[in-house]
């Protein structure tokens, strides 16, 4: 994941947020009847602005026509966003308090890593800001969708999306067969561990994530040597961004190529993997078909 | 035998004519003292003769290819620079540079030349001492030994005795004289007219880039010249101890 753009993305690396996620879910479930009543009385926000890649996509999915006024500029980048085409219909914002305030929103949705200063400034100016923590477990996605639905006043739509999601997820979780070893490898040799959204996608697709050795359970930089010696059956790399960078040089290292050659490989772009939206299931599907290729290739 | 012939040499720096129409020849056995007021162009003349300064006119030395020139003349510049703490032996051996083809190692002949130079300047015990740790007088001797090791028939020195004590000054001039006695030639620029008359066979006086006098010391250092060019009066006599010259007063 491009860490340089952390403010806009709910990266799935920092799983201390999962506790917050659970608390949120628990709180919501307890207060569901009260909230439903409140929502019926409260206004449905008419001008919503989203400042975070993940909230952008959820908002685009659930908002009523004309409700969402602007999304972040990352939402239209096909490498980072699964809804790049839809995002082109909305004006883009760069997360500056000035430009957002001038849009006169009655609700701003942002991520936990959106600049604290910007969020504080907007709140001081009297704008309602809802913060969405990053999702780090596939099971937490419904709660996130539900909350976005509440906040936008679109609970029914949210419930539909959740239902579809849970059904599809269950289908994947019932897959069987051998569990090949795999490693996710990104720029700078970074590998997300089990306690991350990417790691969970891999696990749900039926792979054994080799990064789960003690050092990498929470993600870390795995030296190329270590990866080569572990000889995973599948190496999944992220696709390089335009413009060069030395950080991404490692993804084209001959030793990595050689490791991939004899095994299955896939290079994926961040768009489906980064945010806790139903699109993670697309990533799971991609990984499942990779796994089938591997297993079938052995017959 | 003529070791150097210069004709119509002229140098201009930054639009200004520093040297104009200088012609001279130097033969074996001569010790030529180049004298003149500050800024007369003595250093410029010597560098132009060597060809390390752009010039007009003709200099027999400047026309030689670089290494041949190095074998024909040894140059001791005014700044007595020794950049690194090398041993005396190493420094003197640098004088053999023009004799070594690229990539060639020092031969027995080269080592002999170095030994001879060290002996001549009385530096045998200093052989392994670090040159930069020596006193000023000793360093001057080392640099002179380097010039001797070069084995060139012509030696050109720019103010080699400035800042040395009387003993070193006299012995340096004597060394020049003995070199000339062996059939070589020396051109030395200096300010000390007293030493000049005692040790030079010939004096060339330079003023504002032109040669104003050239000949034996007694015929060159006339009271008129001393007044016009140097602005001084002096006592100049040939005594039983040799020629003695002593500047006396500044004349307006």
């Amino acid at each position, binding site marked *: 994941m491009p860490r340089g753009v952390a403010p806009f993305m709910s990266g799935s690396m920092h799983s201390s947020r999962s506790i917050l996620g659970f608390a949120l879910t628990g709180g919501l479930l307890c207060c569901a009847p009260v909230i439903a009543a409140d929502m019926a009385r409260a206004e449905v926000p008419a001008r919503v602005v989203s400042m975070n890649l993940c909230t952008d996509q959820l908002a685009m999915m659930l908002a009523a026509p004309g409700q969402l006024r602007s999304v972040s500029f990352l939402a239209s980048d096909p490498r980072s966003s699964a809804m790049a085409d839809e995002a082109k219909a909305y004006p883009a914002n760069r997360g500056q308090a000035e430009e957002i305030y001038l849009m006169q929103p009655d609700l701003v949705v942002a991520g936990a890593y959106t600049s604290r200063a910007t969020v504080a400034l907007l709140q001081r100016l009297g704008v309602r800001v809802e913060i969405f923590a990053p999702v780090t477990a596939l099971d937490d996605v419904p709660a996130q969708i539900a909350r976005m639905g509440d906040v936008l006043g679109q609970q029914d739509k949210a419930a539909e999306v959740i239902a579809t999601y849970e059904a599809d997820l269950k289908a994947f979780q019932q897959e069987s067969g051998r569990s090949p070893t795999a490693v996710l490898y990104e720029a700078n040799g970074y590998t997300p561990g089990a306690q991350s959204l990417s790691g969970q996608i891999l696990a749900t697709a039926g792979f054994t994530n080799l990064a789960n050795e003690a050092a990498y359970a929470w993600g*870390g930089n795995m*030296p190329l040597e270590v990866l080569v010696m572990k000889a995973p059956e599948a190496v999944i790399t992220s696709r390089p961004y335009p413009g*060069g960078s030395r950080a991404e040089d490692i993804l084209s290292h001959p030793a990595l190529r050689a490791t991939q050659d004899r095994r299955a490989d896939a290079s994926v772009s961040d768009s489906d993997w980064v945010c806790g939206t139903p699109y993670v299931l697309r990533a799971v599907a991609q990984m499942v078909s990779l796994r089938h290729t591997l297993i079938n290739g052995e017959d | 035998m003529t070791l150097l012939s210069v004709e119509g040499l002229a140098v201009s720096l930054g639009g200004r004519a520093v040297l104009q129409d200088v012609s001279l020849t130097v033969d074996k056995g001569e010790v030529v003292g180049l004298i003149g007021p500050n800024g007369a162009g003595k250093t410029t003349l010597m560098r132009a003769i060597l060809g390390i300064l752009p010039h007009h006119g003709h200099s027999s030395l400047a026309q030689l290819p670089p290494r041949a020139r190095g074998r024909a003349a040894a140059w001791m510049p005014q700044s007595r620079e020794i950049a*690194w703490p090398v041993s005396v032996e190493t420094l003197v051996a640098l004088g053999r540079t023009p004799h070594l083809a690229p990539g060639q190692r020092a031969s027995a002949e080269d080592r002999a030349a170095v030994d001879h130079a060290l002996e001549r300047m009385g530096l045998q015990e200093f052989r392994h001492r670090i040159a930069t740790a020596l006193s000023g007088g000793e360093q001057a001797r080392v640099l002179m030994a380097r010039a001797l090791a070069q084995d060139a028939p012509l030696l050109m020195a720019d103010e080699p005795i400035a800042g040395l004590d009387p003993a070193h000054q006299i012995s340096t001039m004597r060394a020049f004289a003995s070199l000339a006695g062996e059939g070589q030639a020396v051109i030395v620029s200096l300010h000390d007219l007293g030493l000049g008359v005692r040790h030079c066979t010939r004096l060339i006086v330079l003023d504002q880039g032109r040669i104003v006098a050239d000949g034996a010391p007694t015929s060159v250092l006339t009271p008129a010249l001393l007044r016009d060019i140097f602005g001084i009066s002096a006592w100049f006599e040939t005594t039983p101890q040799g020629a003695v010259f002593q500047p006396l007063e500044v004349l307006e």
Partner: protein
Amino acid sequence: MRLYVILLILMGTLFGVALMIGPAGIAPLDSLHALILGGDGPMTLVMREIRLPRALLALMIGAALGMSGAAMQGYLRNPLADPGLIGVSGSAALGAVIAIQTGIAATTTLALPVSALAGALIGVVLVLMLAGPRGGSLTLILAGIAISALAGALTSLVLNLSPNPFAANDIVFWMMGSLADRSMTHVWLALPLIVVGLGMLALMRRGLDALTLGEDAAQAMGINLVQLRLLLVFGTACVVGASTAVAGAIGFVGLVVPHMLRGWVGARPGRLLWASALGGAVMLLAADIVVRVILPMRDLKLGVVTALVGAPLFLHLIYRTRRGL
């Protein structure tokens, strides 16, 4: 000569040690077996494609930086000259970064090192113009500060303008240098220019010795000063350009190595050239080993270790030459 023998043995030993150290924790005998005899399996891959290029690059780049430091010091007659300190490495890094970010580097393989060479060339020429050979230590250091600062700022600017989200953080690699995750491609990329550059610098041997007496005396003895300067400029540009293109700017090697070896070669600048090449290889191999022993799982930049050794020495040298400044 005894010094060369000692340095060669040291270099060989450290080369071997460098091959056997790494985060993968392979037993030494197994690793050498895999390297030499090959065979299938990940160990051969690790040894031949990851550790071998790294050790080779440390050797080549160390030699390159050592000799270019000795050459610059000999020519400028100043013990403070070092391609990293006086901004040549920084300019080379700028050239390399521009090539990468404009996409030129992707067109032909040689485009990257040649760009870095161009950058280094500009750096050397600027230093010579600003600090002479007649310029003293103060002018040299000031010129170095100016050129380093400018090159660093421009490099940072180019990287920040990149569409790539990782590029901005690459500045650390370019300014501090690293040999992590280099491949044999990088070795072949850097080798020709380093060999050519070392050859050019080695030709300066006699001229540098003669320069001990100053420029005038050297010229009068038949040394072609113009040719000497050209050899310095192009030799340094080739050697520093190729090294920086592949490993970023690594400083202080060209300062520390000639300083430490000067006493052993009788202070003769000509002899110091090859001695510094060997010494530089030794120093960089040692630094790369230290980097992998201290933090095996992370990429501690090489420039950190060389600066930790070199900067105190630099301060000491400045202190000693204060009166001349």
